[in-house]
């Protein structure tokens, strides 16, 4: 099977200029950009993804490009287009790749209401999926990256896509977004980790993306079965502790992390309730990564 990684740099850039088709889980993007750093970022991060010849129907048309104007040379800026529209304000050109990833998230989160969409990471081991709803600063991304590099199958790092008919989870296996110290922690954790470009000076700090493992990408199309919902909380010096979380509370918290909970009305309620029903719900406090990983392994043993 031909992968994106088998394309030469020139070929890849040419295709991206005209419009590159990329299948991500159940979605098909058409991506366009004339920026080399976007092309190189994509080629590196999605190297294991299958080559898609293009044409036909696309779920989302997305583009990252330069913003015209006098800024172009002084402090070049880029923006993200979904179809003809720019949902965001421009960012410095150094963040172009990150902007593409965020924009791709936005496309799904704002439109794919055929699914229940959660702001959560989800990984699988022993045929059991663990969902990690993402409170900011909770250390979810670090955990996600470390679990994936330890052999867990990554289904998603930010967007958990839940099938409305059977509650299973659709894998996306896209790059993991990491910030600030997480980047160094993961580099130290596994020297084989492949990172994209680091964007500094974002007003939240430094951002980089981690290439998904080959096993994760190979698993796209194979849906996961949720078994656990874990609310992580990193705290300096904290003891590693997994404690049961009352389900009514877990439900309210999960619903708050669902992008389209309200939009789906009664169905949103039912889908979240079903998820909480079938999963064990946990609070997880930790500070030491290795111990955290062991806890997770025990969870799905």
């Amino acid at each position, binding site marked *: 099977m031909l992968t994106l990684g088998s394309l030469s740099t020139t070929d890849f850039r040419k295709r991206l200029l005209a419009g590159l088709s990329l299948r991500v889980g159940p979605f*098909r993007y058409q991506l366009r950009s004339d920026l080399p750093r976007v092309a190189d970022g994509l080629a590196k991060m999605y190297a294991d993804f299958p080559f898609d010849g293009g*044409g*036909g*129907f*696309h*779920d989302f*048309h997305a583009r990252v490009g330069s913003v015209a104007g006098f800024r172009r040379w002084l402090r070049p800026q880029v923006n993200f287009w979904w*179809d*003809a*529209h*720019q*949902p*965001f*304000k421009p*960012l410095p050109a150094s*963040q172009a790749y*990150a*902007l593409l990833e*965020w924009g791709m*998230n*936005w496309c799904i*989160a*704002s*439109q*794919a*209401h*055929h699914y229940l*969409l959660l*702001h959560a990471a989800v990984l699988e081991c022993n045929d059991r999926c663990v969902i990690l709803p*993402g409170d*900011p600063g909770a250390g979810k991304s670090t955990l996600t990256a470390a679990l994936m590099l330890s052999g867990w199958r990554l289904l998603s790092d*930010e*967007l958990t896509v839940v099938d409305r008919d059977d509650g299973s989870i659709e894998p996306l296996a896209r790059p993991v977004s990491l910030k600030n110290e997480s980047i160094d922690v993961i580099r130290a954790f596994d020297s084989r980790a492949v990172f994209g470009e680091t964007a500094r000076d*974002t*007003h*939240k700090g430094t*951002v980089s993306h981690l290439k998904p493992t080959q096993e994760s990408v190979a698993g796209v199309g194979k849906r996961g079965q949720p078994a656990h919902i874990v609310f992580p909380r990193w705290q300096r010096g904290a003891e590693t502790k997994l404690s049961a979380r009352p389900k009514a509370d877990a439900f*309210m918290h999960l*619903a*708050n*992390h*669902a*992008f*389209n*909970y*309200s*939009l*789906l*009305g009664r*169905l949103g309620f039912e889908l979240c309730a079903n998820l909480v029903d079938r999963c064990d719900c946990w609070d997880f406090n930790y500070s030491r990564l290795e111990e955290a990983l062991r806890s997770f392994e025990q969870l799905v043993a």
Partner: protein
Amino acid sequence: MTPNWDRLLLALREPQAMTGFDAATWDLVVRQATAAGLLGRLGALAGRSGVRSQLPTAVWRHMQAMLAVAEQQQRAVQWELVQLARDLADLDGPVVLLKGAAYAAASLPPAAGRLFSDIDLLVPRAQLDAAEAALMLGGWVGSHHSAYDQRYYRRWMHELPPMTHIRRRTVLDLHHNLLPTSARLKTPPEPIFAAAKPLAQFPRFSIPDALDQVLHSATHLFHEGEWEHGLRDLVDLDALLRAGAVEADYWDRLLARAEQLNLGKPLFYGLRYCSQLLETPVPEAVIVYCSGRPSAVATRLMDGLFVPAFATAHPTCRVRLSGIAAFGLYVRSHWLRMPLRLLLPHLTYKAWAGATEGLRESSAGGNNRRQGSRASIG
């Protein structure tokens, strides 16, 4: 008419034709329909014509998503009307629902798959102050606070500045006429009130007579200048006309009513473009006999403006517009009610895409933010 959006128009006119669209066509039509706010309608039409199962799965999913949004917004409007009925319980005189609110409340033909945003209410001018006061007691807050804006609206416009509900964030427009006082075309509101019919489900409110619904739709379309909604509004009008046309003497009555309300000119344009673009079955003679219809020259000029303007929705539809290009590109996105700041902490939304649209499309009840941790009950 450009060939670029003929597939979209075809799908609207003949839903069965969608079964013949190939993937490349869909790649275009879905985007055009989305930009025009009509993807939900295509979904509803597909369902109604029994061709749903013949559409590509990916395409149907997008329609289904939009139908979910439309359904939720319709529910939200109905909940809003429950609250408003309470707020306006003591108000004398009629309160008439206009446009989207009327379609949603009474499940009128345009409602299927349609997105809703603001609530439009019509009250007699004499009741305007009392209505505004009652709404403010109910938690509705006016905008446009500058003295100039207030004076401008109250003196010249047919509506007050929009009001927003403090908690639920819904937006409401309170009208006392269909057209601004400052407009060249004058139309009396009294006949509309006289012919309005109360709603069984919401006794506090009435909706305009079917003929007046058509006239208001046409008038709104050709006077409000919201061109990004232009094709959607034309589709609304087409739905109303098709439903009405089955009745006896419909066209005669419509023409007579238009003359009575002095709205022959907008009706003319409405009928003309509906029949041209959507093949609404309007008898030729009806268009010819519209009272107040413009001259042939004026009509040709308007053709040159209106038809391209309807296509502003999407770049693939557009021809060289010369002067109309300023009209906005984007049908407001009504589906953004989510904690995106959690997902995208680094990004700042543009004002129109984030804050205001989030307000506009918010569902009723306000506590859709399910932070109702009411564990203290009991």
